[in-house]
């Protein structure tokens, strides 16, 4: 087994991201800071380490988002995203 088997899609962290953003983030769009590609987060490649998750650009492999959760907090590193677009229509109702 190698990491090729462990790669997942953005869907895998939909619940985790929804905790933070209160949006269904898999349908939201990001711009890759490295190559400029536009993708819905559902299309990003995910490595779901037990300590957190890493979302990578499907085109160039750039890490777009890192997220860790623990001790009642979330931490986010979005340096790999040039921009993140949230659509009012994807906000999760209370």
């Amino acid at each position, binding site marked *: 087994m190698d*990491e090729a088997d462990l790669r997942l899609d953005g869907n895998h962290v939909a619940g985790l991201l929804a905790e933070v953003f209160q949006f269904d983030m898999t349908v939201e769009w990001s711009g890759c800071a490295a190559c400029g590609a536009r993708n819905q987060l559902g299309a990003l490649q995910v*490595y779901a*380490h037990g300590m957190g998750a890493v979302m990578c650009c499907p085109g160039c492999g750039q890490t777009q988002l890192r997220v860790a959760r623990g*001790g009642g907090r979330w931490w986010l590193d979005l340096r790999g995203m040039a921009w993140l677009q949230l659509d009012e229509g994807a906000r999760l109702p209370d």
Partner: protein
Amino acid sequence: MAGYVSRGFRGRRRAGDGEAGRLPPGQYAEPGFPVLTAGPTPRVDLATWRLRVDGLVATPREWTWEEVQALPRSTFEGDIHCVTRWSKLGTSFAGVSVDVLLDQAEPLPQATHVVASCHGGYTTNLPLEDVRGGKAWVVWEHEGQPLPPEHGGPARLLVPHLYFWKSAKWLMALRLLDHDRPGFWEGLGYHNRGDPWREERYWGD
């Protein structure tokens, strides 16, 4: 994060007799060896593999695979603890003691910290004292077999007295500094030092 206790659910983990005292707080005994990945597994060619020790040292050193294999062999037998709460008890790794590497590189007096950097970009930081005095190794064997790529092969750092994220996979270099520099997880909310016996999992623990 208390939840609803579901009838009949126990999970996979087993805690054997006599193991409770060996488990740091909040850990359970895991017979397997889970693979935790934060990115693609680097593929490293042994012919071009190098291990560097540099930074605040008198003699920056670099070893090839053959050279590092020729160093005095050292084995660790004991327990490892992952911050995701599994502990693997009674396992073994073999390689070379970091003390041997540091003896050859000769740390300067002002060196206080070390940053491990790895193929694939992973980094972790430690106080220099946490890798000296028989507490750390660079290892390439696990339980008698070559360390598989998914577990950090060809070689990884091993610092078993701290949470296992400090035992950086796919090790490339140890750089000695006179200041601290948080690594991959330390910069994302995890504890800077990570002592499992004091349950130092996250910032502020």
